[in-house]
């Protein structure tokens, strides 16, 4: 066991550390040559992340914002260990990330539920090794309850709405008590009310379990209301434009907190749009 494993009451600072992360994809499209718009040749490297530095403390909710295609999903995949072809340094709890791990659960941008398994089976995925079947069933029920889906154990994913599927995936992720939870646009495609409820659900879960959550979002309000820290990316090749801890008290309401409203105005500007028109 390393030092990082010993339980310390105080949250660890610099729990997730990303240093000078550079990532390139190979161009796979056969682009037509056009002298006016030079595009990368087939096989050429396109730099996506160009020296990204991020520090995340233990137990924080971190919201990553940035324009579409700037590499947010790519970054998340790298930290979660799914993608190891990069240069730079990525570590969680002092250990270099070597691959995916049940301690770092990823909630996918598209549904990541195993469609041939019932809801109960999916939520129990991380509890497969539990010997005591009754205890396992109880735990599955507890986490389903937590996301408001009590009694849906025997349903199949295709029998659920999109929002319910997301919640099942959330329950599945939380059931293993991961050190870190990665969420790639967890609220995209949900209707307004479900979106609000899911946001609340995630905050409640976080309040309850105090796990580190790294979340990619398109929604600036989400980031301002949920984030203990926000990270804003610029255009490709991507660098961190802004990384800031949000010390605002909760519950937060952007419209009644002038500081938060000012920050929102700045963030909108940074993303190249105006909030007030």
């Amino acid at each position, binding site marked *: 066991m390393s030092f990082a494993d010993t339980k310390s009451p105080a949250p660890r600072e610099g729990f997730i550390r990303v240093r000078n992360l550079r990532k390139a994809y190979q161009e796979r499209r056969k682009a037509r040559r056009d002298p006016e718009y030079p595009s990368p040749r087939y096989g050429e490297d396109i730099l996506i992340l160009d020296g990204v530095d991020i520090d995340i403390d233990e137990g924080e909710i971190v919201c990553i914002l940035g324009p579409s295609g700037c590499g947010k999903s790519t970054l998340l995949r790298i930290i979660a260990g799914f993608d190891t072809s990069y240069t730079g340094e990525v570590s969680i709890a002092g250990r270099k990330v070597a691959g995916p791990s049940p301690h770092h659960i990823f909630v996918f941008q598209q549904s990541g539920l*195993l*469609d041939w398994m019932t809801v109960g089976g999916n939520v129990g995925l991380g509890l497969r090794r539990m010997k005591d079947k009754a205890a396992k069933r109880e735990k599955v029920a507890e986490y389903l309850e937590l996301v408001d889906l009590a009694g849906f154990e025997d349903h199949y994913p295709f029998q659920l709405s999109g929002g319910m599927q997301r919640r099942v995936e959330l329950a599945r992720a939380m059931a293993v008590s991961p050190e870190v939870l990665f969420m790639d646009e967890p609220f995209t495609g949900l209707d307004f009310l479900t979106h609000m409820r899911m946001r609340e659900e995630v905050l409640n879960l976080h309040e309850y379990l105090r796990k580190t959550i790294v979340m990619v979002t398109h929604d600036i309000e989400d980031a301002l209301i949920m984030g203990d820290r926000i990270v804003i990316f610029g255009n490709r090749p991507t660098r961190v434009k802004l990384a800031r801890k949000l010390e605002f008290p909760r519950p937060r309401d952007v419209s009644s907190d002038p500081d938060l409203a000012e920050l929102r105005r700045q963030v909108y500007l940074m993303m190249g749009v105006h909030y007030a028109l």
Partner: protein
Amino acid sequence: MDEGRKKAVAVPGLSGFTESLAGRVRALDPLEKLMDFLRRTPLSVVSFGAILLLWAAVVRLGVWSENVLPGPLAAARGMEELFRSGLLLKHTAASLFRVTAGFYLAVLLGVPAGIVLGYFALARRAVNPVIQFFRPISPLAWIPLAMLWFGIGDKPAIFLIFLASFFPLVVSTAAAVENIGKTYFQVAANFAFSRYEMLSLLIFPAILPSVMVSLRISLGIAWLVVVAAEMIAVKSGLGFLIIDSRNALRMDFVLDAMILIGAIGVILDAVMLRLARSREVLWGARGR
């Protein structure tokens, strides 16, 4: 009148009354009566009835002699004779045994082979061209070799059935594995699936819907091939019954064997279809 029926459904208490009234009204119109009969009867009964009538009519026209084309009645009498003599059961059992053996062999080897090919891109690149080369060679082209290698009897026939269903199964299983969504594998990695769990929790259930479809198709092919193989390599089975009866100029038996082959084919297909609709493969209904 359709209005009446709709209402009858809507108001259950009235249904009996409306129905009988509608029936009495309808009885006056023969065309309506026919249409209603058609509506109530499964269409397959109608079409088979039509074929039977056509068959009887052609026989009646006397284009061919009864020796060359026996009528439905003669065929039915022949069927009874086959059944009484026990030949029907014997030949059917022989054919079914060979299909079962060959098909199981193909499934047992073909599905795992397909999984390996689907999973390992390198293996696929190496083996696929070979499979594509062997696939267009009709299983019947293997008959001379099969007889030399396995002699006379069940073995060459089983081998041919195996060949016929093996290649399609490998190809479609490999394609199914290749098409499993990448996200599933990331979930598996995330939850630290063991090799065994990778198969039992991910690959098997993921490919089950499409493998069921190809099992159904290849069982159909196997049934096609067994009859052909039995015409040459063996002395029993429905294929042999056809050849043997032709040599004995018992065309009624030939027709009976054909009817049996068709009927059993339909039953086999129905069984596979039922399996494909079972709970375990139902998730694929979403068509992901």
